[in-house]
């Protein structure tokens, strides 16, 4: 990634004619172009919802678990109550791990998309 060109005007027509790359399909709004876009969107949304699902199952369930099992409030890990350890310390590295994993996967999705649509079919 050393030089990035931001295109705001009409797409550049490639010198060679006759080829149909994915980017052209998308620009022309064809059915195939729509399928390309849908696959990217669906991949990214599935990833995002997967991460959020993990967040809900791990962090979001804590109040319910402590509500249903009140005895947990008295559990201790070393000098700290369990609830303090989970909510005051452990949750933050966990959020970072989730975020790091998301970035890796979403960039991989975008790379796959780029190589798919930039491939020229003859």
């Amino acid at each position, binding site marked *: 990634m050393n030089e990035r060109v931001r295109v705001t005007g009409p797409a550049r027509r490639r010198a060679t004619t006759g080829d149909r790359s994915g980017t052209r399909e998308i620009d022309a709004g064809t059915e195939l172009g729509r399928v390309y876009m849908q696959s990217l969107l669906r991949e990214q949304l599935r*990833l995002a919802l997967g991460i959020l699902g993990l*967040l809900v199952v791990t962090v979001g369930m804590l109040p319910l678990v*402590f509500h249903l099992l009140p005895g947990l409030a008295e559990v201790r890990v070393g000098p700290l109550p369990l609830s303090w350890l989970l909510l005051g310390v452990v949750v933050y590295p966990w*959020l*970072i791990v989730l975020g790091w994993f998301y970035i890796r996967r979403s960039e991989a999705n975008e790379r796959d998309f780029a190589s798919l649509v930039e491939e020229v079919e003859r």
Partner: protein
Amino acid sequence: MSTDVVPGFVAVVLVTVATLAIGTWGLRFSRTTSDFFVASRSVRPGLNASAIGGEYLSAASFLGVAGLVLTFGADMLWYPVGWTAGYLVLLVLVAAPLRRSGAYTLPDFAEARLGSRGVRAMCSVLVVAIGWLYLLPQFQGAGLTLRAAIGAPAWVGPLVVAAVVLINVGSGGMRSITFVQAFQYWLKLTALLLPACVLLAVWAGDGAPDPTIGAGAGADFWSLPLGEGGGQGLYVTYSLIVATFLGTMGLPHVVVRFYTNPDGRAARRTTLVVLALLGLFYLLPPVYGALGRIYAADLAAAGSDTLVLELPRLMVDGPLGEVLTGLVTAGAFAAFLSTSSGLSIAVAGVLSQDVTGRRYGARRLSGVSAFRAGAVLAVVVPAFVSIAAPDVGVARTVGLAFAVAASTFCPLLLLGIWWRGLTAAGAVAGLLVGGLGSGLAVGWTLVSSDTTGWVAVLLGQPAAWSVPAALAAMVLVSRATRGQVPAHAGRFMVRLHTPEAVQLER
């Protein structure tokens, strides 16, 4: 002036001078209107993340959390957890597309996505409303802090903060503020970290007494991570989680920062660094809360918001205690300055586009002058309200600002980014349902002192019902008006979701 006030006075003066100096230094880089609004979109992830952390960690984080933990115990840990997790939700759903949309502000995004002036106008009103609702407790907190630190009358704090913010925002806009905010994150972290280390050493020297057994009754209640009272406690906790997890993406001063990233990839990386910076900071306030339980138990009943400011002096005697007191006072003051600056920029940006930048008769202000006029309006109104109405309840107001943001901009952003089928009519319906629902709750909470019973609970913490209601309204009305899906919706999706490196019409 007694010697008690010297450290606080020195701290406040130093922070003010440093803020103005860095702001003036940043001014050398501010040239164009684009610099004023979005720092010409060239801020690197590390600097940008420090700036986001700097402006996000407000009075509620620096002072409020420790006090709440002291009084109510572990369920208050949900505030910092939610404020951090909100960035994870923002990262996975909003960060990169929002940057790629190429808009300056939230109303810009709404107009570009839906092609409707009406939706734009509603968003502008909401940005100003949320901004002012959030600015109010910052100004009030500043008044409280200056009174606690140097015994100044309550109106001095809002006045000093408003003046410093106006000078910085008005002279340099986003570009110079970015440096100021980044500096203030590290100042706030240091101001909480160093005293915490000393206080922990003192605590260990005292034989490390156990805070959960320390001060009388309610030991297991203090380590229970949900509110008291069965079903209602559970509802309040989950509603708080909804408001903070989803509200972050709708806060105008947070969103505007994402436009300053160079591209979508950088926007994601910035968010990850923000997660790390916030996680690091939020390890500290609970330490103060727990130590306060041993050394300052009587503060729990009488004004726990000043716990962070008073604990060093209570635990350490002599000059070291004074220095530490000065340090936490400096951090608190930095918190007011940075959050107020960020909010003022966001509100000023919207006001300058939709109010001060418009043509009145034959006159029309240029971009930069309109921004400055907007900044004056953005700061002066809440500053006066905070002086006129001195007691609204600092932590409550911030919580309500999150609930309003979660009920309005969160559905708009989610559906606008991920669902082609959103129509202007649907957006208006959802914003009305969410805005009026949460707005009603805000009004009721601010005037009523009733805090028991289901009505009070539902209105005091509205997010758990107002967010789904707003989402449902947006989806249903959009389905009913599906013929009006904007013609450019498909093209806009391409712009939001495709990496910049791929050459496409956007």
